């Protein structure tokens, strides 16, 4: 594994890794903020779940890839890859568990077109 560290160190001296990693981390942070705004704006439970899943996927993955670009060694990259793998395995399961629990408990999703604050047509899917 020594040669991998050497490759990464040689690439680090050129400085592009900092730029790429920083930009990716910035995109991840921005998309997480946007997802938070979406959680506040969307009308009901299920649609808010959609907004929150942006955090799970684009936010987390771009942050992890950005951190991998900034990482000093191959070991950190391996650990970040493991974190990404486990997040992609577990986050849909938890989203599904939450949605299934709400649906089983009888929470009716709002169906129909939303513009602004009004429901224009209800019950038409």
């Amino acid at each position, binding site marked *: *594994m020594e040669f991998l560290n050497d490759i990464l160190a040689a690439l680090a001296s050129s400085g592009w890794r900092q730029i790429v990693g920083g930009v990716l981390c910035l995109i991840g942070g921005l*998309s997480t903020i*946007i*997802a938070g*705004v*979406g959680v506040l*704006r*969307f*009308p*009901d439970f*299920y*649609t808010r*779940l*959609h*907004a929150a*899943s*942006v955090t*799970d*996927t*684009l936010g987390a*993955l771009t942050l992890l890839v950005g951190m991998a670009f900034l990482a000093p*060694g191959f*070991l950190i990259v*391996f*650990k970040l890859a*493991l974190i990404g793998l486990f997040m*992609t*395995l577990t*986050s*849909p*399961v938890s*989203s*599904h568990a939450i*949605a*299934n629990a709400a*649906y*089983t408990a*009888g*929470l*009716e*999703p*709002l*169906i*129909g*077109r*939303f*513009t*602004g*604050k009004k429901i224009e047509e209800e*019950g038409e*899917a």
Partner: protein
Amino acid sequence: MLYVLGLATALTLLWLGMSGLFEPVVLSLGAISIVITLILSVRLGLKDREASPYHRIVAFILYTPYLISEIIKANFTVIKAVLKPDLDIHPTLVKVKTTCRSDLAKVIFANSITLTPGTVTVRVDDDSMLVHGLFEDGAQPEAFEDMDRRASLAGDGRSKSKPAPKAKPTEAPASETEATS
């Protein structure tokens, strides 16, 4: 036996990746703990094909680029909807037929649907799934046919060319009691 070998390989890779130390003492400690883990998992009987799908790993790796591209595309749709000054969404609940047979393929398909923002699998039945979508046109049953085909290829290991029958969007039947999981 194949299962034990696969688990040993995975555990060895995990140990080396997590520790990164190559001193004899640390390596022997790792070997001892790997052997203990193998003995325990064999004694617990966790060695069937379902619990350790190593035979599907190549097909699954081939499936991931498609999944990532779908996730990124769907993310931009949702972000656009969030940032629009006037909210313009059309939540729907659709029943999606699936051609996936094994539980593994169904899990891959349902998790792929949930991972792409804008669609969440609410319920999993035997051959259909209830999907809540943020946009009506993005959550039609036809939109999932490609993903269904690829997921069943990754999970079941065969491409079934039979097109999924068209399902009609359902209203919320909230009185249904039992949820299969």
